[in-house]
């Protein structure tokens, strides 16, 4: 772990009340700050949608994903497996390729057409495919011949809960609500069955079962695009020696030097906060006040706080507890209450919710006075829940909304942006940093369906952080930040694109709302990237300070002893 941990403690009586928000205070505080410029061109973010709606099915999304990643997959395959191994479609494997064109010539032509679709973005130097393309008669891969197949992984999981079962149980008398609650509550439940789970590779032609040590079933998830080298065995299964993924390309300005030694001089930080969860507990709300005072510079390391040029709230501003109450109420109001008691006392609860949103609003407004804030929604926040989540509506945050256009930016989840530290340092002005990340749903989902998450409940924070970082590292390797969407992670059925594909390696790849802090430097496509697991503030009392020069992350923890 490359982080140091700072503790900001607060003792009885030291608690200062939050100051009233004034425009004065804002400008004053802003002056003290290190300036930094950020650009994320929010209006045109690929995660914003206007036209997208749920009137579609998911197949296009998988198809688009495979098509976008195909060039990268082929390149990886070439690098990893060499150019001599022929590339085949799944249907051309083994016994499948009967010569069925004897009866009519038309079949051949059509077959070529469909395979051309698969190879549509093949460039000239693609030697891997030449042999095959030159041949008139596309013969099947002989049994045992070594070939490469490219497609989407489908992981069959015996223990994964399926909605049909839920339905059947409903018939047996367990109400739907009980199940939903049961199914939703335990975020750390794991559905891996190491003995029974297996993977299938599907391309646009067919699917084949994958076998052998080359395919790490425990790590993979449904939706990953992969190139597999191996051979068909007698059962018609594909025995995999080796797998390659579509790594993202290194960013154009990869010349940027990470000035690791340059710890001298003034440092600029991005403060990553997640899981504030206002309304979850009184302690939590107090700690949030401490956080705001820390950012202000009136609590803890003033100098360091002064270096914070940007706050990124990555998810869960408002507590899921209040949201959960809301949900139950909403269900009573809008959906079937198979066994509910009616919803007459809704008003009292409403107040509780709105008060927690009000607190969040006040907090945000205060921070916005001092420093620019990017606000991403998370799983518990009032916006849509399927990825990509759209920015939180202004009406929930009337006070903070006044900073819109100046310091507050309400953004999507996932979120991608660039930030250029210290504009006064001309020499490094070009060294902008790219950030990419989510509020953590992608990681959490993968922990439930991969072996990284097995038994995570009982683990230490370090081990938990390691599991999170492992998953994140794989996302970068796969070139995709949420492969398990839509299979187990709700997302929108995009028709002509897959916004979750990672095309370029970001300098910082973060995931919010995790159970522990952790960071790791990795090299992907010969470019350095820092992975950050942003801890949930309400669970850990911690935030992350990320040094924009050194790209080092450290954890700052707030404790309010005696409260």
């Amino acid at each position: 772990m490359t982080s140091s941990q700072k503790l900001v403690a607060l003792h009885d009586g030291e608690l200062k009340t939050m100051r009233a928000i004034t425009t004065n205070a804002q400008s004053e505080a802003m002056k003290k700050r290190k300036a930094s410029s950020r650009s994320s061109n929010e209006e045109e973010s690929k995660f914003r949608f206007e036209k997208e709606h749920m009137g579609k099915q998911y197949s296009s999304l998988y198809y688009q994903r495979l098509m976008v990643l195909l060039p990268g997959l082929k390149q990886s395959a070439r690098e990893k497996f060499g150019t001599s191994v022929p590339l085949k479609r799944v249907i051309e494997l083994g016994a499948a390729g009967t010569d069925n064109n004897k009866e009519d010539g038309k079949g051949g032509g059509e077959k070529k057409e469909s395979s051309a679709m698969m190879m549509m973005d093949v460039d000239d130097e693609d030697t891997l495919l030449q042999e095959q393309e030159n041949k008139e008669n596309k013969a099947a891969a002989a049994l045992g011949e070594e070939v490469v197949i490219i497609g989407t992984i489908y992981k069959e999981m015996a223990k994964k809960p399926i909605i049909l079962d839920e339905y059947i149980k409903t018939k047996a008398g367990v109400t739907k609500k009980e199940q939903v609650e049961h199914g939703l509550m335990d975020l750390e439940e794991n559905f891996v069955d190491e003995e029974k789970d297996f993977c299938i590779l599907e391309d646009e032609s067919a699917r084949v079962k994958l076998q052998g040590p080359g395919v790490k079933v425990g790590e993979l998830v449904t939706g990953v695009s992969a190139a597999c080298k191996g051979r068909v065995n007698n059962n018609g299964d594909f025995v995999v020696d080796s797998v390659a993924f579509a790594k993202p390309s290194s960013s154009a300005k990869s010349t940027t030097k990470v000035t690791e030694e340059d710890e001298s001089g003034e440092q600029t930080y991005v403060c990553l906060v997640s899981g504030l969860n206002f309304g979850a507990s009184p302690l939590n709300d107090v700690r949030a006040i401490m956080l705001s005072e820390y950012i202000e510079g009136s609590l803890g390391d003033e100098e360091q706080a002064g270096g914070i040029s940007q706050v990124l709230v990555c998810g869960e501003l408002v507590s899921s507890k209040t949201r959960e109450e809301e949900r139950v109420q909403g269900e009573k109001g809008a959906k079937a209450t198979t066994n509910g008691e009616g919803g007459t006392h809704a008003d009292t609860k409403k107040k509780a919710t709105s008060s927690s949103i009000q607190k969040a609003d006040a907090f945000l407004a205060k921070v916005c006075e001092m420093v620019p804030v990017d606000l991403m929604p998370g799983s518990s926040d009032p916006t849509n829940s399927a990825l990509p989540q759209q920015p939180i509506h202004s009406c929930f945050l009337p006070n903070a909304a006044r900073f819109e256009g100046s310091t507050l930016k309400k953004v999507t989840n996932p979120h991608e942006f660039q930030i250029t530290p210290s504009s006064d340092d001309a020499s490094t002005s070009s060294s902008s940093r790219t950030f990419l990340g989510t509020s953590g749903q992608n990681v959490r989902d993968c922990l439930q369906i991969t072996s990284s998450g097995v038994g995570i409940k009982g683990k230490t924070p370090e081990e938990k952080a390691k599991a999170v970082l492992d998953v994140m590292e794989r996302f970068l390797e796969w070139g995709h930040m949420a492969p398990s969407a839509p299979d187990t992670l709700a997302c929108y059925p995009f028709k002509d694109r897959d916004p979750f594909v990672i095309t370029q390696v970001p300098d910082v790849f973060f995931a919010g709302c995790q159970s522990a802090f952790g960071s790791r430097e990795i090299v992907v496509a010969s470019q350095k990237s820092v992975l950050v697991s942003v801890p949930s503030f309400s669970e850990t009392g911690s935030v992350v300070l990320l040094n924009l020069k050194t790209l080092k992350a450290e954890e700052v923890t707030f404790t309010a002893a005696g409260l």
Partner: protein
Amino acid sequence: MNTTTTTNKREGDEKDFEEEEDKKRAKKDELEEDELETQETHPWSANEEILEEEVYVQDLGKVSDDVKVVEAEKKSWNRKPLARPIDGQTDSILFQQLDIDYIIGQPHEMLGQERRSKGQAAILRMFGVTEDGHSVCVHVHGFNPYFYCAVPETFTEQHIPAFLMSLNSQMMAHQRSSNSARHFALDAHLILDKQSLMNFQPNGKKGRFLRIIMMLPTQVAQARGILENGIHVDELHQSALTFPTFESNILYTLRFMVDRAVVGGNWLELPAKNYRVRPQQRKASYCQIECDVMFDRFISHAAEGKYSKLAPFRILSVDIECAGRKGFFPDAEQDPVIQIATLVTEQGSDSPIIKAIWTLDTCAPIVGAEVKSFRDERELLRDWGKFMRAVDPDMLIGYNIVNFDFPYLIKRAQTLGVQDFPYWGRIIGKQLTIKDTTFSSKAYGTRESKEITIEGRVQFDMLQAIQRDYKLSSYSLNSVSAHFLGEQKEDVHHSAISELQAGTAETRRRLAVYCLKDAYLPQRLLDKLMYTYNYIEMSRVTGVPLSFLLARGQSIKVMSQLLRKARQRGLIIPARRDRGNGPNAQLEGEVAYEGATVLDAKAGYYELPIATLDFASLYPSIMMAHNLCYCTLVKQHDVADLPPEAYTKAPTGDVFVKSTQFKGILPEILEELLSARKRAKQDLKKATDPLERAVLDGRQLALKISANSVYGFTGATVGQLPCLEISASTTAYGRQMIDHTKKLVEEKYTTANGYEGDAEVIYGDTDSVMIKFNCKELKTSMEYGLEAADYVSATFTKPIKLEFEKCYWPYLLISKKRYAGLLWENSEKWTKMDTKGIETVRRDNCLLVRQVVETCLTKILMDRDIPGAVKYVQNTISDLLMNKLDLSLLVITKGLTKTADEYAVKAAHAELAQRMFLRDPATAPVVGDRVAYVMIKATKNAKGYEKSECPIYAMDNNLPIDHKHYLDNFLTKPLLRLFEPILQNAASVLLSGEHTRSIALPTPSSTLAGGIMRFAKVRPSCVGCRAPITDEKLSKSLCKHCVEDESKHLQKALVTVNELEKDFNRLWTQCQRCQGSLHQDVLCTSRDCPIFYRRRKTQKDLIEATTTLKRFDW
């Protein structure tokens, strides 16, 4: 009880049946005769090399490389060839016989010149498979059809020639066609050592019978008619005498099997030197081994020990797809067959040896399956026919093949003029035949069906088998596989099929994968339900050929056993004369005596344990205990001649002799069946090999069913041999025993006798008695139950036995034949929830009823939470009224069996189909489809059938559900039945009250709302309070009053969206998993799938909810 009824066309009217058959056979025979002589000129046989076994080879490797051609991997689909030719002198042939039939042909040379000169003879053919999987066809010669008739005491040997002459001249006179036999009765023998099965003969008197041997099986029925009308025999009597016939209505094949101790599916052996192998050029069939044998020169092995196994016979499973026109169910005269998927499996192996699909037009390859594509449909059909002959399957299976797939293929080939197509049988140059039949029995109901004759191959339609053996709410392949295999099947609507076909090689591949799946499911069902084992065991136990089991009722099975047993005992079975064609003919199968009574049910909800005492195999054991049989029934005028200790008088007054006098045949059959079952069950306990277990379990089940059908056989008034004295006595004894049990138990188990409580029999049904011992402990009740069973059993004649097996606790008794309870077999843990006669499986109910009833029962019985159950019902009703229920719960489905006009009374589903056709002919259900509908609100006086609507249409257009209809017509009755024993005022608590006050009705989409709404200007209304929005500049979503609470209203909208997003995701990804592809759109339209409507509804609701969100500038 398996009471069997039959129609004229079935074995119930053996005479008509046989005669009808005779006519056809006679015609066929003529043809056959021609064929035999002029085989070369047969239109088809001339074209094909029929003398050689057809070889069907599939090229595997690429043939273009000239080097590889030499050793090109050729995979033959034929059976593996014989290691060496059969040598009739040294080899004996052992095979499992699967099908037996007969033809009329020239007598074989082994019959001798004399017989050959007389003309045609019946030749039996037995088809089967050897241990090594080689197919066998054996022609059996020399077995003459015969029957008996009773003759007067004065009839002696010397009367025989005159008798024969008289009979033959009558036969000649009755000759129906000119070109017919010249010989009839060949011979007759006087038989003095037999007796009629009917009635006990005091003093063991033997009868005087004549066995008459006929030339052809078809002549038996004719001769019977003549003899029963009376003929004149010189020197016997002055006037014509009638001769009652015996065993004159036995199918020839069965006659042969009985006489030669052959049972269905057993192993036969042709010892070396006793048969003649047919050389290749003289073969009549495609079988690998073909030979001729005399009827008495082969060995029939009883199905025991090493002969109980099954041969590795070939099972071919098939499914076809046709491209229908928009709005019509595929019609073979117009719509092409576009795909035929075929799987071949060897019995005993768990994966298919051949998976292949024939497609019209190109089709992209499929992993693990052979794809054969054709431009010309004729070629496709021709090639498949060729394949069928090459594969030479022993059994053909599929889902609804008999009434859909096969007739369609046959008719299609006929339409296209593919003359060499309908040759699927094993006999070279022999076309299959197809005709309509009606099958009707009390046990299985009436079914219209096709009868397809494919010689030498057994047809086993999984649909028919499952319809017979299981009561399900739906028999669609989808719900059947969901039920037995636990998985949903993708269901592609036939309008989508045509589209896929019209697409590319890839879309056709998609269709092919689907089609292959549908061909695989019947095979998997066959395996899962152990059908091969169970049915072969059934035919072994009852002695009938396998093909009889599906095509015929229960009675032929009992008849077969009766014949076998009677033969051993020197008894012969009278042919029935009166066939119930009188005024009461419509009451076919109606049992004309008092049935089993049931003790009055003391309805109520019992919280104390209720012990249940069951009579094990009640009717069989009564028949055994009291020696009830045809041959023990004493004629009333004979009773006086018997000493009183020799007989028993049944409660009906009928008299039967005791077994010490004469052991009845039926009791003997039953004893054998039941002791065989006991043995099978014991062996089953010991057996470890799963295959052996399967066989044994199949056997014990077959034995049980067979034992139970004996009683029904005696009671079926239009059956083969009804004897109401037997069946009425049986039920009378049963009633008496139930009363007797009640009396004994209630007398003995009282507090006065030192027991914990006064016992009370609360209910008694045919073979069980429910006792409330009035003790709190389950354990005590069980002890008392066990004790009572022994105590009462001791008072009955053996083998009648009362058994204690279970307690119900708690127990809800609604009325007779309707109850539910939590079943305990030990005092530790309950076994299951047991329900009888309660709305859980009726198929015309909507899911809501089943769900509500099941949930209530769970709450009442398992959770013992009656207030919870009440609350649940109230909430459900409230949800129904508030329009909050999942639509799929309200969907009713009904099969459209004919067009709307043909229904006598207007039917909701047929009317709907008609309306849907007007909307969109492409997707409207057509005859043969199942129509799914919901009941919607209509104008005040709308008729029921006008209220039906397509669920999707109703959903899309926000049509309000007619909740009152659901409440009144579906929920009220079952709920009241359930709760009346429990609640004082069930109706008012459940069906009226606070929870029924709020009713929500959605506004139909404006496009549909007729009348004045068409002129109304649509103005956006406030999301919060539905008031029209006057100031759109302020907000597009809220009115000026609500806009202050914008966040509150937005929050509410978001909650809805969140829920729907999650559901949407889970539902659609589930469908992707089910269809087995990520990259292709879900096409499934399976209305039986529980999530089909939910998926649709969620999508629609979500689009709506997102639209609302967008109005918030979200």
